[in-house]
């Protein structure tokens, strides 16, 4: 008889699934909104309980989905690492929805709002399942769920450029999941398993005997490439700015902050649990990931510098941040992975905050998005201005903010490798580049424009928009708090991550 807490991961996944199903029948958009927010919050609470249980007990457990033990039936596996990520993901999901609420109800037609929340519920379920899964094929199925749901979130705004961005996103995602599935097929053909523990044993044996070397290498490469395409790893990022920059505020926040991370978490779990870091280093895959990560860090930032559409700028900045995470994975050490995981958390707090604040700032400036028209908008909603400032500071990596700590950990992890100088230089360069586009953005929102310009902008603003937005302010406050917690009390969190990576 297992302890009751061990049911909670499964409960949270099912809660989200069932909420998605039930939501489709409710007509009122407001009710579905509240259901979704509550479900996400409940999932966060449940997962926090799991986190406490696993961290204090220093254990991880396998939960069979059904009566059949591995390798016969599906299973999920849960430890501190997964529980922490799941908690943060669910909490950020709820906050992003709350923060983008006003835009959401404006952008989506009333009769379709419930369908939007169906997508959000399913996305939550698939994120949790991707985090917890112990079965590679379940991973594939939930990747497809999150593909459809994410595309639907992009197109929910339903104007022309959005539809085109969606179809580009969809095709790119399909390429990614196709590559992932064929990689999985090849892996299955040489090992014969789908559950991760058995896969790990079989892969370890193949590594020793040296059989099927080519298929093993190719399947690792295909799986990494497939998940890389879906999480906008550098050369495959072309779809991202349109998709994330054009969507409604809450969608952008969820997509940029969470959905990209879901795939990366699956990749990290596969690397740690199945392939082992040593094998990846042996096959040279880590070096490729490292190179792409470093390139992404630089080129993503450069692309962001050329952008003056604020949301697209943030989207390009996501490319750079995903580059950081992949760089950590590519270091090929446990330290690198810990730094990456921490950065996932930091970015999951920062990017939604930035997107929410950008959405709010543009709402008080007549829904203009270019930096020129946002001049002085921070004074029209000081909360949004402060939130944007905090997010940007954290992105640049100022001490006391979350981003600084993760950069510190990246630098620490880079020291034992042979390429310390290059990696440190790249981090430094990328920091400078980050500053080069976030500082002008900050100045733009905080510097008052000439009176006539401001009057021109204000003429476009609907007076309702200027009213105080309670749910947005609450959401921004929560995320800001999260950034400070990550930046100041980071030690317990890295301890949890470390325990999780050890136990995985």
């Amino acid at each position, binding site marked *: 008889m297992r302890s009751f807490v061990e049911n909670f991961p499964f409960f949270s996944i099912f809660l989200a699934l069932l909420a998605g199903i039930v939501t489709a029948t409710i007509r009122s958009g407001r009710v579905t909104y509240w259901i979704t927010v509550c479900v996400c919050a409940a999932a966060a609470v449940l997962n926090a309980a799991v986190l406490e249980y696993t961290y204090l007990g220093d254990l991880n457990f396998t939960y069979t989905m*059904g009566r059949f033990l591995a390798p016969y039936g599906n299973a999920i596996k849960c430890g501190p690492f997964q529980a922490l990520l799941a908690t943060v993901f669910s909490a950020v999901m709820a906050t992003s929805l709350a923060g983008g609420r006003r835009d959401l109800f404006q952008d989506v037609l009333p009769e379709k709002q419930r369908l939007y929340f169906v997508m959000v519920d399913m996305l939550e379920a698939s994120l949790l399942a991707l985090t917890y899964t112990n079965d590679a094929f379940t991973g594939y199925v939930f990747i497809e769920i999150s593909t459809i749901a994410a595309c639907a979130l992009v197109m929910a705004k339903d104007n022309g450029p959005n539809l085109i961005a969606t179809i580009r996103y969809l095709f790119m995602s399909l390429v990614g999941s196709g590559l992932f599935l064929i990689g999985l097929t090849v892996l299955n053909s040489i090992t014969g398993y789908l559950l991760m523990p058995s896969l790990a044993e079989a892969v370890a044996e193949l590594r020793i005997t040296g059989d099927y070397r080519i298929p093993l290498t190719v399947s690792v490469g295909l799986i990494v490439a497939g998940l890389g395409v879906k999480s906008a790893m550098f050369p495959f990022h072309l779809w991202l700015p349109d998709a994330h920059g054009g969507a409604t505020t809450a969608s952008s926040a969820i997509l940029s902050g969470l959905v990209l991370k879901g795939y990366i978490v699956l990749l990290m779990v596969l690397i740690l649990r199945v392939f082992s870091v040593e094998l990846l280093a042996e096959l040279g895959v880590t070096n490729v990931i490292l190179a792409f990560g470093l390139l992404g860090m630089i080129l993503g930032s450069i692309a962001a510098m050329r952008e003056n559409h604020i949301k697209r700028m943030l989207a390009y900045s996501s490319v750079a941040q995903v580059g950081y995470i992949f760089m950590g994975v590519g270091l090929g050490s446990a330290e690198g992975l810990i730094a990456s995981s921490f950065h996932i958390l930091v970015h999951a707090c920062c990017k939604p905050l930035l997107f929410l604040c950008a959405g709010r700032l543009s709402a008080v400036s007549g829904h203009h998005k270019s930096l020129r028209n946002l001049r002085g908008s921070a004074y029209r909603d000081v909360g949004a201005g402060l939130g944007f400032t905090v997010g940007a500071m954290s992105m640049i990596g100022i001490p006391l903010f979350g981003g600084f700590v993760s950069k510190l950990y990246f630098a620490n992890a880079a020291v034992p490798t042979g390429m310390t100088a290059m990696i440190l230089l790249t981090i430094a360069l990328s920091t400078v580049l980050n500053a080069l586009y976030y500082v002008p953005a900050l100045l733009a929102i905080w510097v008052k424009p000439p009176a006539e310009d401001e009057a021109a902008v204000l003429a476009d603003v609907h007076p309702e928009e200027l009213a105080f937005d309670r749910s947005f302010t609450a959401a921004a406050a929560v995320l800001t708090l999260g950034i400070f917690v990550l930046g100041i009390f980071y030690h317990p969190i890295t301890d949890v991550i470390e325990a999780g990576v050890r136990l995985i």
Partner: protein
Amino acid sequence: MSKDRERARFTRRLTAWVDGEREPKDQTLFVMEQHPPRHVRQSEEEFQRREEDRLRKFFNWYPIAAAVICAVLVAILLTTVMSMPGFGEEDNPINNEVSDRYLEYGAEDTGSENVVTAMIIGYRGFDTLGESCVLFLAVAAVMILLLRDRKNTSELEVRQIERDEAEAMSHEDLILKQVAWVLIPFIFLFAIYVLLNGETSPGGGFSGGTILGAGLILFSAAFGFRRMQVLMNRRRYSAVRTFGLLLYGVLYGLYIFIGANGLPNYLTGMILLIDLAVGLVVACTMYGFYALFSRGEI
């Protein structure tokens, strides 16, 4: 006085910098000759031309790069499959204790003689639940896109559709109707047979549901949407769909809970119910796609 002016100038320059505008540098009096400003702010046409150029360049290199990637990928995959385990051999790694167990105890464990059904519903049921959710989600996504609303349909089109329908009702296609009269009962019968016999013969929820859906599509095409609505209007449709998936979800959730906690198993004969639920979901999905695609309405 001069301080104020100084500050105003500073502010102006700052705003110009933030906007990315360049301002002419002729602040001093002692300039002998003036260089023309290097970056003239490009005019609108210039900007457009640049954008088009960029797009054209993108399209010029994109096929080449994609073709190279494809060729490399196919070459790699060919070498891979050449060194993969041979086709049809009995001692391949994939034929391991897992498949042996499924074949040997599948009927006993799950009560289904068709091992494929046993596997997708019993052993790996979580995947199948996810897959049903994909179907559900796809219909919801298509609804977002195609369900009639003020953005995707104009008044004119609605009237056009209604006129077409009225015409179709009065002007019936005799051959299609006669054929449908004969075929539809058989299709439904076959669908139900496949659906309910998933345990002992090929088929099950997915195939049976698809055939059922195809039958509904044929009915709708032959006898018109109006008559179809007698059978299945929007509320009934959404009720059936939700009921199917909810039944599946709840049953399966209970099953997982019982199995994982090692409680005694009360749920025997669950496969039939789950097959039925899956069949309902799939049939509704297929018909829903058709209705939304052809009319934007269910």
